[in-house]
């Protein structure tokens, strides 16, 4: 059930046999979520963490009168891992499209860390990568024009989905709307639409229904000036 989490940890940190065994035995409850269903809302106290099994989640904060998507999450992510130490949510955690999560009690995570302390480092590293992604987004939002912001978003998602085996010849399931892209990139819906059209016209993006294809990832990464180092592509545990 933790297949995507294990795939992700293998890709970015590497796992020893005994760590794999303990992770596989991690108790959890499977929960299905509908489109726009909240897992946690700002102000909620969390007693569990969720491992995303399939679908997409986002973290969202209402800033002034705007919806700001703070981060997007792909299978294998634990987007509320920080609640283990900071249990009061300062943002919302929401499903986009239908998704499935494994709910793991905080107590079970703590018991796992007691049993296999090396995993503390692995999960600490996950929170550091999460923070690195936030830094990257802050930089992009503050410094880039619309075309580069949106291109960077798709470049990043492709790498993160590739880690967990969900990128299929440049294609992936993508239940977000254009308005969601705008909320994540700090852009109006109309300008997001125009920007996506510009990427389509350059042959760098195809978006039909809930499938996105990046026909030429190399060219998209070049246009976006994208460097995946912050995602720890190909690096193993230090």
């Amino acid at each position, binding site marked *: 059930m933790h297949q995507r989490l294990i795939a992700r940890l293998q890709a970015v940190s590497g796992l020893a046999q005994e760590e794999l065994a303990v992770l596989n035995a991690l108790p959890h409850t499977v929960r299905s979520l509908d489109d726009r269903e909240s897992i946690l809302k700002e102000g909620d106290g969390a007693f569990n963490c969720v491992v995303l099994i399939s679908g997409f989640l986002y973290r969202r904060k209402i800033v002034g009168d705007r919806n700001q998507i703070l981060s997007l999450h792909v299978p294998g992510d634990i987007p509320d891992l920080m609640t283990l130490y900071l249990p009061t949510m300062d943002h919302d955690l929401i499903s986009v499209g239908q998704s499935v999560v494994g709910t793991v009690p905080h107590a079970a995570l703590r018991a796992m860390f007691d049993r296999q302390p090396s995993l503390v480092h692995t999960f600490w590293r996950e929170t550091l990568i999460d923070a690195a992604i936030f830094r990257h987004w802050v930089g992009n939002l503050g410094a880039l*024009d*619309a*075309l580069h912001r949106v291109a960077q978003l798709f470049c990043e998602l492709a790498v993160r989905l590739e880690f967990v085996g969900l990128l299929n010849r440049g294609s992936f399931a993508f239940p977000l709307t*254009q308005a969601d892209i705008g909320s994540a990139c700090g*852009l*109006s*819906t*109309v*300008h997001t*639409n*125009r920007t996506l*059209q*510009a990427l389509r016209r350059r042959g760098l993006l195809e978006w039909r229904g809930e499938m996105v294809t990046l026909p030429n990832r190399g060219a998209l990464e070049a246009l976006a000036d994208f460097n995946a180092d912050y995602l720890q592509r190909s690096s193993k545990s230090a």
Partner: protein
Amino acid sequence: MELARCGFMTRYFFDYRPSDSEAAIDETGHELESLDAARAMAFAALGDAAFDKGRDAHEFRLTIDIREGSEVVGTATVTISTT
């Protein structure tokens, strides 16, 4: 407009007509409750476009045609220039 007032949504299209490149015709549009909502959407888009172009330090003018079907029902324009 009668339908919109009854709570039905209207699909508005936003065509970009920039001074420095060819027009980009909106083929998908957005379902909105009123022309006022469409104008607000166009304003926000002009702001984003001005942000993109302002950093290029080029004079630039962009008109967004708000279209309902084949009929332009409103326009919004931003101009960046120096004297």
